[in-house]
């Protein structure tokens, strides 16, 4: 089969399999009387009633605002601190035990503390999301900056590149493949922590809606929320993948040519 044919087959499978699964689920659950597994059509109806677009401004927007605020803070703090620790051996040694300790704390254990300090509002949720998302980005940035090829550093030094250009033009691009790997991990964490923080204490948001639906025995609604979260996670990942592919095009090219 030609490469083109293979490509179309791949895409076809990617689309066909989920649809087939949904059809099977739909057929098997049709007329279901089991309380916890309502007919798929009921879930779709609930999905349409709630998310297209009744609750978009009341739940989806607040949820995503928290998620991306926390995620954004984690990116900025993680990369800046990672640069600092990556460039300075002393700073790295000094910070290492503290970083390792903080990283070892299971994030949900910090929720009570966050509620005490920030209350049950957005502050607490953004704090928790940012704190958890920070580690993969920070550690990957440290590692990435620290392992920039010495020849590259010397080249920049030899040509007297001003320090600002050395950071933006040499260290960050050279470390970017690893930084991106960290950000990718954090993106999934951000979604997870958004849901958890909204389930613990909230008055709106998708996580809150899912838990609230379950508590009020609105099972199709609960499922519709879970569906939405899955779709959001998928879309974010795909979007991020596109950005990564663009930004790191050189990296794939260089690696492919190094492998010959």
């Amino acid at each position: 089969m030609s490469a083109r044919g293979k490509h179309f087959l791949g895409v076809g499978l990617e689309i066909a399999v989920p649809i087939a699964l949904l059809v099977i689920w739909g057929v098997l659950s049709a007329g279901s009387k089991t309380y916890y597994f309502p007919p798929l059509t009921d879930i779709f109806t609930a999905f349409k009633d709630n998310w297209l677009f009744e609750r978009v401004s009341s739940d989806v927007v607040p949820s995503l605002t928290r998620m991306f605020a926390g995620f954004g803070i984690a990116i900025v703090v993680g990369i800046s601190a990672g640069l600092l620790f990556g460039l300075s051996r002393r700073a790295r040694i000094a910070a290492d035990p503290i970083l390792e300790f903080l990283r070892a704390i299971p994030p949900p254990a910090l929720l009570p503390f966050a509620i005490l300090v920030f209350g049950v509002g957005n502050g607490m949720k953004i704090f928790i999301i940012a704190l958890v998302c920070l580690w993969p980005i920070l550690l990957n940035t440290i590692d990435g900056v620290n392992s920039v090829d010495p020849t590259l550093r010397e080249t920049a030094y030899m040509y007297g590149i001003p320090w600002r250009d050395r950071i933006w033009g040499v260290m960050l691009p050279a470390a970017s493949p690893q930084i991106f790997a960290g950000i990718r991990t954090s993106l999934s964490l951000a979604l997870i922590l958004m849901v958890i923080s909204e389930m613990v204490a909230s008055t709106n948001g998708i996580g809150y809606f899912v838990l609230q639906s379950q508590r009020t025995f609105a099972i199709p609604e609960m499922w519709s929320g879970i569906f939405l979260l899955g779709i959001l996670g998928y879309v974010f990942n795909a979007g991020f993948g596109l950005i990564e592919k663009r930004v790191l095009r050189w990296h794939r090219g260089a690696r492919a040519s190094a492998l010959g």
Partner: protein
Amino acid sequence: MLRVEHLGKTYGEGDDAVEAIGDVDIEVAEKEFVCIVGPSGCGKTTLLKCMGGLLPPSSGQVHLRDQRIEGPPERMALVFQEYSRSLFPWLTVRQNVAFPLRRKKLDKSKAKELVENAVKSVDLTRFLDRYPWELSGGMQQRVAIARALAYEPDIMLMDEPFASVDAQTRADLEDLVLEISREYGVTVVFVTHDIDEAVYLSDRIVVLTPSPTTVQEVLEVELPQPRDQVETKEQQEFAQLRAHVWRSIKRKQEEKKPEAAAAGAAG
């Protein structure tokens, strides 16, 4: 123009100290092409990095036009052996060559002109907007040379620049470097472990001893200019010089060996 005085470099301290360079004196005149040869592991790269201000010497000093070198000087460029690691893979050829010009704060059209002329003189104009990893090894090293040229150095240090390309490409690159060093009027200090290459390129050859390094011998090369890969290498004098340098390095290595063995037995 470049003066190395009593340069010494020791790595580590106390009992672990390793003396890489003992005591080296070298003088390089304006527009001269000087090759530094020596047995492998004799601290050639260390010496070159001290000359470039990348490494602080443990003793002695380096002067560039009577200015003591304490960091990379603005009128100096360095071409590394590992071209694939010294070019920035996220920048195109054009951007790579232009990158060091940021230090000089030139206006845009002047910078563009410098870049395009430098790339033209290494014959890569067609590849200006390609990435380094899309090019062959020899072409990548030509990009690194163009980057050094665009920087408008008075002196160019080259650290075994052609050690990792094939023989044919190597010959072409040698001729290219000779040609542009004349054209740009730049002084070149060229480190190599290849004796043929040193004799072919040099106005003068500095032969180093094994580590801890000192200067064993300095040889004038009076082969006619311009050099030619076939004709120059056919000359009697080329063969003599080549043999001379060869023996000089070999003899010193032999002398060192029994010494090292004796030291090992005593220790």
